[in-house]
């Protein structure tokens, strides 16, 4: 693991308290780690030359300029089309859950959202923020200005997960709300009725939006690391259940696997990028997904 990549780990990011710095840290670390420029091949117009930096594609080197100046310059392009992105955050109480991890699901999602916001603004793409619980709670309209980063980050920093959730209903609301084709980046643990969620996702997709579904779960929710007799309580519904964790683990993992497989299959069918994550995973996975999606859109 290179020194840069290790900064993409949640346990390192947690040590940076300011969210803007976190976002910057994540994105810069991520970009430096990439061997090729993530912006290559985008549908943009040539705007100016800039100095070659390691990591740039040598194909982009302008050899004419090199002939004249004896220095490496590469062509810089300007985006021709703008991609409107919405960061959609789940505010359900379950998102606040963390079991022996550095970041809760919500914190992890916010870090990721901030990084994406930073990245999009950097691309001059307008980014908006929508939060939901049982319904859409709050929204910031998308803008591509630099100030937007500050707005979104400060808003994100203020968010607290405490509501009950109805993802299906909220997504339906969202579908009705969005006028133009946008890139919807949904951060949720999807703990609800999957039928309703999938149905809402279909509707959203039908509206012409590209969707990246970041399914964020806690490490404990993925591994079920408990031992012995435990009484498990749902923080949203306050329902509790007494189980023998040892005997239950295989059943649980099987059930979760089925759940994730179903989302993966359904999302693949309707053209949604489904990104299963857990709070112990580095952020680059999520960012790569975004970039791939962004390239496809270009």
């Amino acid at each position, binding site marked *: 693991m290179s020194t840069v990549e290790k900064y993409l780990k949640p346990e390192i990011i947690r040590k940076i308290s300011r969210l803007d710095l976190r976002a910057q840290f994540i994105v810069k670390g991520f970009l430096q780690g990439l061997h090729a420029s993530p912006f290559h091949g985008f549908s943009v117009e040539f705007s100016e030359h800039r100095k070659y930096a390691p990591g740039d594609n040598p194909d982009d080197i302008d050899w004419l300029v090199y002939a004249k100046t004896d220095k490496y310059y590469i062509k810089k392009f300007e985006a021709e089309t703008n991609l409107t992105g919405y960061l959609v955050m789940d505010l359900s*109480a*379950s998102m606040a*859950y963390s*079991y022996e991890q550095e970041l809760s699901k919500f914190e992890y999602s916010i870090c990721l959202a901030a990084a994406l916001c930073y990245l999009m603004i950097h691309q001059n793409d307008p980014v908006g923020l929508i939060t939901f619980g049982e319904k859409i709670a709050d929204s910031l309209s998308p803008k591509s200005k630099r100030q937007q980063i500050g707005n979104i980050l400060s808003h994100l920093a203020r968010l607290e997960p405490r509501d009950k959730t109805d993802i299906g209903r909220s997504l339906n609301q969202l579908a009705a709300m969005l006028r133009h084709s946008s890139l919807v980046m949904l951060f949720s*643990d999807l*703990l609800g009725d999957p039928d309703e969620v999938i149905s809402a996702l279909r509707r959203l997709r039908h509206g012409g939006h590209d969707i990246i579904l970041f399914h964020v*779960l*806690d490490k*404990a*929710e993925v591994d079920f690391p*408990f*031992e*012995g*007799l*435990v*009484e*498990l*309580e*749902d*923080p*949203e*519904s306050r*329902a*509790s*259940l*007494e*189980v*023998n964790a*040892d*005997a*239950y*683990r*295989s*059943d*649980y993992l*099987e*059930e*979760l696997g089925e*759940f994730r497989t179903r989302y993966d299959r359904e999302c693949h069918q309707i053209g949604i990028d489904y990104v299963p994550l857990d709070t112990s995973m580095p952020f680059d996975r999520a960012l790569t997904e975004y970039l791939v999606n962004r390239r496809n859109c270009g």
Partner: protein
Amino acid sequence: MGFLTPVLLGGVALVALPVLLHLVMRRQPRKLAFPALQFVRRRQQANRRRMNLRNWLLLALRCLLVAGLAVALARPTLRRSGLHGKEGAPLAVALVVDNSHRMQYVHENKTRQRQAVEMAEWLVEQFPSDTEIAVVDRSRAATGFVVDKKTAEARLRHLEPEGSPRPLEDAVRGAIQLVTDRPDHRQEVFLFSDLSAVDWTKQALKSIKEVLDKSPDVRIFVVDVGVTHPRNISLGQLKLRSSILRPGQPLHMDVSVRCIGSDEAQLVELFLEGSSTEAVKRGQHHVELTASPAGSNLTTTGQATFELADLPLGIHQGYVRLAADDPLEVDNTRYFTVDVRPPVRVLLLGENRRDTLFLREALSPSMGGLHVVRFECEAKQFSEAVSLALKPYAVVCLCDPPPLDDKLWQALADYTHSGGGTGIFLGHRARMSAFNEPVAEQLLPGKLKIQSRQATHLRPRSLAHPALSSIKDYAASIPWEIYPVWKYWELGDLATDAYVVMRFANNQPAILERPLGRGRVVTLTTPVSDPLEPPGRKTWNLLPTGPEPWPFVALSNQIVGYLAQHDNASFTFSSGETVVLQLATLQPPSIYVLVPPDGEPMRRKLPPGENTIRISTTRSLGNYKLTSGGTLTQVNLGFSVNGGEDQSRLERIDPTQLASAFPANRVQLAETLEDIEIYVDVGRSGHELFSWAITLVALVWSTEHLLANRFYRSTK
């Protein structure tokens, strides 16, 4: 089904322990927040059912483990003794040990008897202390239950080989009878045998079965201590032509060699014991063995003949032995005793020398180069006889006696009473009036009736009488017809103690015997002194004057020898037999010394006036010597004791035949100590199931462990 330590069955109650742990020691659950409860809830029912099943299964296995351990430690047994109603009763056991000489067969450095005794001792150790034990062997001594186990062991240890064992079935029957006398006991007989076919005859099996049928509670364990493929070379009994020899008469003996499991030529040696203790080798023979037609393929036989000439007067003892060693040594040596005695003094009484001529020539021929002097004959006339002392003569023969003086008759009767032998050869001089007088009738076998003129000849129907024993072998080749008898004395009613030794062809008595006191009288009803053509009358028979009259010679020798009471003595006895020896001395000794084969002299007393010595301590095989000092009372006797030939017969009975001869489950056959152990365990305390039970417990334990690990393996 029973238990050796039933108290430990109480441990089954510990089954409650896992149940209590399961119910009472239930842990409190740890409270945890967990948002993804929906995944847990979905499988709750199925998981609970499965968990319940697993828990119950594990609980059941743990309970089974505890109960199984308790049962295994209580040592379960399977009872199969078949002795209903006597479970737990004290034991009455008879240990029958075959201690015949055959059991001295050495296999793996141990005699069969030693092997049997070791097994028996081990058994005795196993018996509970209140067991009644009887040790039965094949000696004829009476047996009963011994006081305690120590005594039984001592009796077993001191069992001596028995030279003349009683039949095995007698010992077994006695043992069955002994244990049957303990009706409140469990009755068992352990028989240690080499399964020799000689002992286990059909008759023996039948006899044992009959006793078994009468004693339904008795079980017999036959412990086979024999060897499956025995190897043995044995000597048969020595066949001496005569045990009493006369000066010049050679010692002639035949001995057979029998071999099981080998057909190699065997070296047989003859040793003669001298005055010193060292025996001197006097002959040897290489005996070629040939397959015995009657025996099995493995049995071979051969024959050896020894002859020793010029033995001086006196007792001579020796032995014939096989030079090679074999596992059974007791039958490798055969002992003999012969006595070379001075010639028998015979007084021949006749009217003239002619009357005694034929008999004298027949008994001690004056011609020919014969060196054997069996009889020393002295011829006298009847007139001289009245004044003669008859005592020095062993036999007095009256050849064609005329009417005799009553004094002579009386002298003869007294002489015979005191052990002398009198031969009366009746002829033409006999007169009914004189011979039918009471004084003569003391000796004669019956009253003279008539002089029969019916021509006939001797025709012996049976030659079983000892007086005829030596002509028995060639009786068929004697042409009695060519020695006709034209005249003979027919007798009236015979005396009650007289009996016919030989008859004529017309069934009239020819030779008669009448015992008188310690002596005997033999009467021939036709003379042996008639010349071929006597003057003035016809000859009575052609017995001495026929062509080649060798039958007459043989017959006269036999009759006179029989009258002398010397030649029929035998000095060879079987082991255990009571030896009876007649003392020929005028004054029997009061004390004599018996030297048995092991060389430890024993002083014995003889009651005054007794001239017969009886010796019953003849267990050891070998040559015995009997001596006493003094000039008048000097005695120098000896005898030999040999084992029976059946003690060399190692052929075995088929064990299946043995098993099939008895009712099922009554007789068990064992070969090793382990076999006995199994039978003893199964028969007495039952078949112990500890090993099975503990294996089952181990299986349950490992299954529980395996399942528990499998159910909770994700813990690791």
